[in-house]
């Protein structure tokens, strides 16, 4: 009954506006999670194809997914369009970060002019969406994706499901637009607790020796819609839509992930290349969970991989390179594994494949835990065995340990094996909030009181010394998620600024700067002065003669 007030032309226009608004909304959200800066040009003369007078590119696969999810329907009461953004680590753990909801409620604005006011307000709402997508926590995460994790998106239509966001999630409203058939609302619910562990217990499965690759496998879980990486890019689809390619030309690998139940994680790798048409072919890669830092590098933008791994001939598959939990291979302080005894032995990173294989050197192993160490990285030929290739490994079950990363942050002096790792078992430990000690405890801010000093020289020595004295003892829990030194390039080279900094950030203190020794030697020097003077006085004639020879 409420629609009889709207004439048919207006109704048609409104439906079209809502449909394209939904499609553009998805584009903005996904593009904002690609991990790169977006840039489009203004055009003073209208091109006729830029909906809502905004230059928003259309990534064909994203449009395709959105249309598939909508299946010809429009958002209506109880039928919302949702874009779910989630994060997947190199080990296969995934976590929902945000749900963007485009909803419709019953509150109608009969008076509003469709072709004019509604259209302009939808345009304004898209601008707000552009702004808001940069300020939720997932934005910064998505800008750093690629090494340790990737960002995925999933579109669904129907009821909004927010229970994957953990406790205490927050909501931000992007905006609303009233229309004669209802009010459109756009909002985002986002997780704030990054250390949340999924309620589905992460079951370990024994590693599979060798890799199973099934071509053209139907997705085993048809009820859930597939996840897609947000770092997908392609140029020129056969639909005829071409747009300027986004960034530099890259080898493209699109990967579709089916949502996995706890017992299994099925990765499907889609072959995609510039020349190939719409990526439909999927290869399924069954990857054992846990114990294997063997994962997909979805974005091959910066690292080029050799597809030599896994015995797969196809040169088009961009292959995962190992993650030693995704860190710089050369950094020695990389891996921590909670042993069964509760101690903290170190375990090696997994064998690498591809380009980084040769650079992979395993973390140092503490001698107390002999069985867990594997000293040799596997070479790139050794593709079939995916387990820890050390003789120490008795059974596959030994592999079932959480391997994750604990980076020692700046200003920490403590060697790693003394750091207590309490909640080690959570999959997303690397995202655990940094526990910065209070400033009061920071010796950098409040240097320890200096003792009474005699000479001013001693006093100044002391103040230099104290700043290095006890730094770090209070910083056990300081965990740095990422360290990107300013103006340095990506961590591609074996030794770059970041690595250099990490390796040399805690040099031992100079002995001369330590209080006691410094003070002692100074005191000694002062005491010995009179003696030295007496000796020199005795030899004064020699000195005079020497001086004369110089003149």
């Amino acid at each position, binding site marked *: 009954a409420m629609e009889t007030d709207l004439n048919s032309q207006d109704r048609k226009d409104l439906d079209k506006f809502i449909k394209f608004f939904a499609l553009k909304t998805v584009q903005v959200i996904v593009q904002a999670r690609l991990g790169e*800066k977006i840039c489009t040009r203004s055009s003073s003369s209208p*091109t006729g194809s830029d909906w809502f*007078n*905004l*230059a928003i590119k259309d990534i064909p696969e994203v449009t395709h997914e959105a249309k598939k999810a909508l299946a010809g329907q429009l958002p209506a009461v109880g039928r919302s369009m949702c874009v779910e953004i989630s994060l997947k680590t190199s080990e296969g753990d995934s976590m929902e970060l945000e749900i963007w909801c485009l909803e419709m409620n019953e509150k109608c604005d009969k008076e509003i002019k469709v072709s004019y006011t509604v259209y302009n307000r939808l345009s304004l709402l898209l*601008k*707000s969406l*552009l702004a808001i997508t940069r300020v939720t926590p997932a934005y910064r995460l998505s800008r750093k994706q690629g090494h340790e994790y990737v960002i995925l998106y999933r579109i669904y239509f129907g009821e909004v499901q927010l229970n994957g966001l953990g406790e205490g999630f927050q909501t931000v409203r992007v905006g609303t637009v009233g229309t004669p058939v209802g009010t459109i609302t756009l909002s985002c619910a986002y997780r704030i607790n990054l250390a949340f562990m999924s309620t589905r217990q992460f079951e370990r499965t024994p590693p599979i020796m060798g890799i199973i690759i099934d071509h053209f496998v139907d997705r085993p879980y048809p009820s859930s819609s597939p996840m897609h990486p947000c770092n997908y890019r392609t140029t020129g689809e056969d639909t005829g839509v071409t747009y300027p390619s986004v960034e530099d030309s890259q080898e493209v690998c699109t990967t579709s992930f089916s949502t996995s139940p706890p017992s299994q994680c099925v990765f499907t790798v889609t072959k995609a290349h510039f020349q190939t048409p719409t990526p439909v072919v999927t290869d399924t890669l069954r990857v054992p969970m846990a114990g294997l830092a063997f994962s997909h590098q979805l974005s091959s933008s910066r690292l080029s991989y050799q597809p030599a791994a896994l015995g797969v001939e196809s040169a088009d598959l961009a292959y995962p390179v190992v993650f030693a939990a995704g860190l710089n291979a050369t950094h020695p302080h990389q891996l921590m594994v909670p042993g069964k005894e509760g101690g903290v032995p170190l375990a090696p990173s997994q064998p690498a494949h591809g380009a980084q294989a040769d650079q992979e050197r395993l973390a140092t192993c503490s001698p107390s835990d002999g069985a867990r160490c594997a000293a040799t990285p596997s070479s790139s030929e050794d593709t079939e065995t995916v387990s820890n290739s050390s003789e120490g490994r008795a059974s596959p079950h030994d592999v079932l340990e959480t391997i994750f990363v604990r980076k020692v942050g700046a200003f920490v002096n403590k060697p790693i094996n003394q750091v207590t790792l309490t909640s080690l078992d959570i999959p997303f430990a690397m995202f655990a909030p940094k526990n910065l000690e209070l400033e009061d405890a920071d010796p950098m801010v409040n240097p320890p009181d200096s003792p009474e000093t005699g000479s001013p020289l001693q006093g100044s020595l002391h103040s230099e010394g104290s700043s290095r004295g006890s730094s770090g003892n209070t910083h056990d829990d300081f965990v740095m998620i990422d360290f990107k030194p300013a103006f340095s390039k990506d961590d591609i080279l074996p030794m770059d600024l970041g690595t250099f900094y990490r390796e040399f950030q805690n040099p031992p203190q100079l002995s001369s700067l330590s209080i006691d020794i410094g003070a002692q030697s100074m005191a000694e020097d002062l005491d010995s002065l009179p003696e030295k003077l007496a000796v020199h006085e005795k030899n004064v004639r020699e000195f005079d003669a020497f001086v004369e020879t110089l003149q």
Partner: protein
Amino acid sequence: MNCRSEVLEVSVEGRQVEEALLAVLHTVLLHRSTGKFHYKKEGTYSIGTVGTQDVDCDFIDFTYVRVSSDELDRALRKVVGEFQDALRSSGGDGLGQMSLEFYQKKKSRWPFSDECIPWEVWTVKVHVVALATEQERQICREKVGEKLCEKIINIVEVMNRHEYLPKMPTQSEVDNVFDTGLRDVQPYLYKISFQITDALGTSVTTTMRRLIKDTLAL
């Protein structure tokens, strides 16, 4: 009609002033700019396309979106630069504020000059803090970034209220509502001014009124 007034406050380190202000100003102008109008014969018009781009801040962990118009960006950077210089040279407490005012021109008959009627004013109060250690600066980068996120959400909230906006003008009236002088975008008529203030908010130095566009017709 009353003029809407919104006030935002930021506490930043000296070198963050420019980026924090640009982030706020550009976010507001993103919402208050349209494509260029092209009027056609029957009194209808078509609107050009507005592009957008991400800008990463160097001194703040933050990225904002601005319209793709280098002219507009230059104009904003110019006035923000002047504000920064004034802050530095004033030697005061490091307090100042910048106002972005949207207005309409109302033509009056000669000899009366045109009126400028503001309909929305955004004021950003800036407090400059000095930090001693590198660790404090690192924390400040992140904290200011988080604060700016909140500011953006506040701005968007205001924009979403869909309160008064000038009517879309006819061709003869367009320059009373929009700034048509830019090549690629068309913001509503605006002017930017700033003051250096003391702790009470009153101006201690000569108020510098920096007008970006011709406003006070003589």
